[in-house]
């Protein structure tokens, strides 16, 4: 089995979680005997190619391959790039990027055939333009390598057009992989309709739609109206190989309860704050930390002040690299109260760092984690109760920590990719 895979990024240069997931997937597929040819917009050359061959779209010139494709490309090439694009999930730089984008001047460009295009491969001002150019290059690459793959696999909306182009040209089956949807990124009335259109088109054109959780599968079926028969859930995994947990000296004696992620509507920060206030009414030897940044940060700070718990509630701002590990090492309880989370890898990281986690039922991770505590995101009383219990009943915390650690170490990409391989096999 050989797969032509379209991604947007690949470690070590990543902004969001998509690149990490893609690396896990190609490695897991390799372990299952599936070869992959991984196309990305802007490869740096230092990617780990031990499990896949990486093709850099920036090195490929667009060719005028056939008339039917011309028509297709005509449709995509004039997508206007004049406004902000909601990026793929979780790029914490996005906040800053918007500011940057506002300052930059944008131009609309048309594409000349026979030219190479230097992709940025980021989530910047030219995102829409890059997405449409990527489709053209993707089609070209598919034709050049037509004898080297059996299935096309495209990760998230950024690459769907490339996937469609490849399918139209080669006639080979297309799998689109939904890591997040527009409905997870914005609330109902704030969905970017251009992204939505591309997502819908990708899912409709696909022979199979792979989702990272049943929660996402339901969104794909109910909001995008895709035939349930072709939507398959393959839960995410995580690769912890070679990772050592940090030991950090603590400055405070109090227990620490942590929220770590973007401070945005979807992550449910206000529920965390409300629960913190409830717990603090009852017990004093505990501190709450909100690590991250986002458009709801100022609101969160005012909420903390209004509730009068600022002496026990701390904001760290956006954490990078080692600081994330340190934060986990300092934590006694980790909370992910997301309103809508396609999967949510952070509780797995926390549990790997020996921190018991409370997650919302509205996350894909809740479908696979048996040893995380679970609440509905809106049920602040239940959340407060669970926090209190983990602080007050040491046996519970020990049990959740020990079992949780073992559990997340077992969530390997090999298993997920065996399921993915079956999806491919059903198509050829």
């Amino acid at each position, binding site marked *: 089995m050989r797969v032509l895979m379209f991604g947007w990024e690949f470690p070590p240069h990543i902004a969001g979680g998509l690149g990490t997931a893609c690396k896990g997937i190609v490695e897991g597929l390799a372990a299952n005997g599936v070869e992959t040819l991984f196309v990305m917009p802007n490869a740096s050359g230092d990617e780990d190619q031990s499990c896949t061959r990486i093709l850099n779209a920036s090195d490929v010139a667009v060719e005028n391959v056939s008339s039917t494709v011309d028509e297709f490309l005509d449709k995509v090439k004039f997508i206007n790039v004049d406004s902000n694009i909601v990026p793929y999930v979780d790029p914490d730089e996005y906040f800053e990027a918007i500011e940057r984008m506002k300052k930059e001047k944008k131009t609309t460009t048309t594409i000349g055939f026979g030219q190479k295009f230097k992709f940025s491969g980021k989530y910047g001002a030219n995102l829409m333009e890059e997405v449409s150019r990527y489709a053209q290059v993707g089609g070209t690459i598919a034709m050049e390598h037509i004898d080297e793959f059996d299935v096309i696999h495209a990760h998230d909306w950024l690459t769907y057009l490339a996937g469609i182009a490849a399918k139209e040209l080669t006639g080979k089956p297309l799998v689109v992989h939904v890591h997040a949807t527009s409905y997870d990124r914005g609330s109902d009335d704030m969905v970017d309709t251009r992204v939505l259109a591309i997502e819908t088109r990708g899912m409709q054109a696909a022979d199979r739609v792979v989702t990272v959780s049943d929660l996402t599968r339901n969104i794909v079926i109910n909001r995008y109206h895709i035939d349930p028969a072709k939507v398959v859930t393959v839960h995410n995994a995580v690769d912890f190989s070679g990772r050592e947990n940090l030991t950090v000296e603590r400055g405070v004696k109090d227990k620490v309860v942590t929220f770590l992620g973007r401070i945005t509507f979807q992550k449910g920060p206000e529920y965390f704050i409300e629960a913190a206030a409830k717990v603090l009414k009852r017990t004093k030897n505990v501190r709450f930390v909100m690590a991250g940044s986002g458009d709801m940060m100022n609101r969160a700070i005012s909420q903390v002040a209004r509730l009068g718990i600022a002496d026990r509630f701390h904001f760290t701002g956006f954490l990078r690299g080692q600081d994330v590990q340190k934060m986990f090492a300092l934590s006694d309880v980790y909370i992910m109260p997301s309103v809508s989370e396609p999967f949510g890898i952070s509780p797995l990281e926390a549990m790997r760092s020996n921190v018991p986690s409370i997650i919302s039922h509205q996350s894909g991770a809740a479908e696979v984690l048996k040893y995380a505590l679970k609440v509905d995101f809106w049920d602040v009383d239940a959340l407060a109760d669970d926090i209190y219990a983990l602080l007050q*009943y040491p046996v519970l915390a020990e*049990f959740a920590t020990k079992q949780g650690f073992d559990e997340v170490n077992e969530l390997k990409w090999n298993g997920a990719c065996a399921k993915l391989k079956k999806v491919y096999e059903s198509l050829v």
Partner: protein
Amino acid sequence: MKKSVCLYFQVNQPTGLRLYRFFDIGKDSHYYDDYANRTAVKKAAQNCYLPMNEIILDAIKKTKGKFKVAFSISGSTLELLDRYAPEVIESFRALAQTGSVEFLCETYYNSLASVGPESEFKLQVMKHKEAVKAFFGVEPVTFRNTELIYSDSIGAQLYEMGFKTILAEGARHILGWKSANYVYNNDLKEAQKVLFRNYSLSDDLSFRFSDRNWSEWPLTAEKYTNWLESAEGDVLNIFMDYENLGSHQGAETGILEFMKDLPAEVLGRKTLDFQTPSEIAKKHASVGEISVPQPTSWADEERDLTAWLGNELQQEAFNKVYALQEKLSILDDAALWADYGHLQESQNFYYMSTKFFTTGQVERKDSPYNTPYEAFINFMNVLSDFNIRVNNAIAEK
């Protein structure tokens, strides 16, 4: 000598705890979900207790007392029935008056006290004995423990309390090549008879009866009686949860009709009759002793205690409950003792089990809690409040 068919039905309704948040600790000491408990009791009464009791009473009358069964009704259940469905108590009384029904003794709160402190175990056994006497006017002489938990030493303790007959699970790992269809005696107390459940014949009725994929489906009273007739041995111990007749297996499965047909069918055969556990103990001599050093139960494939005390959460909750026993023993507060009993009910620990995780399930169906964690947290919150009350009561003394 005729082969004795011994039917025993367990009647148990848990006194379920309400959603008890940590905000409630020290403020509100009502622990039970009265509405859910009432609903469950009413439903069981309607689907199982009332129609089945009527079928049994009818059969006893028709066979002139030759149809016989045994019941064990926990004290907690008697309290719930008395409160929400007194007509069920009346119908059990009617059965008691026939003389063909034996009422067994158990721990009042259907608890795990037999593996806890001996004094607490004894207290609950005696409390239940008194309750059976008060409700039905008969003194129980046979014992059946919660979930059929049995070991040599539990049996020996009960012998000291006056029980000469005890029921147990016919677990393969203790019987080995021996058959459950004979009367055995306790390894430590020769005079105590042990009746082992024939799980195969029991499960035919309690689970497989309604399974349409079962090769023997549909099971008729005639076919089942043929199996009873062809089984080797002196006694056929068919023990089950009463609610398998009408509730877990609804009337639409035909189980009630089956039970209507069974008495006449069995009594029509020359080789079979019905006997209650204490009659069997009198009629049949022991064929030998069975050694059971570790407690067994009728639960799961393992037939052990891991469903209640299998993980750290369950053990912690169990230990914390029984750590209070000494403090309570100096208090004479009826309300505290009643709550203490209900906290010991076995299902509280069962809901904390993580055993079902191994089957790949993330959430369980047979618990009011979504996860074992929720069950533990809720229970520990209640226990925290209870602890405060005990300490206050001691301080006032």
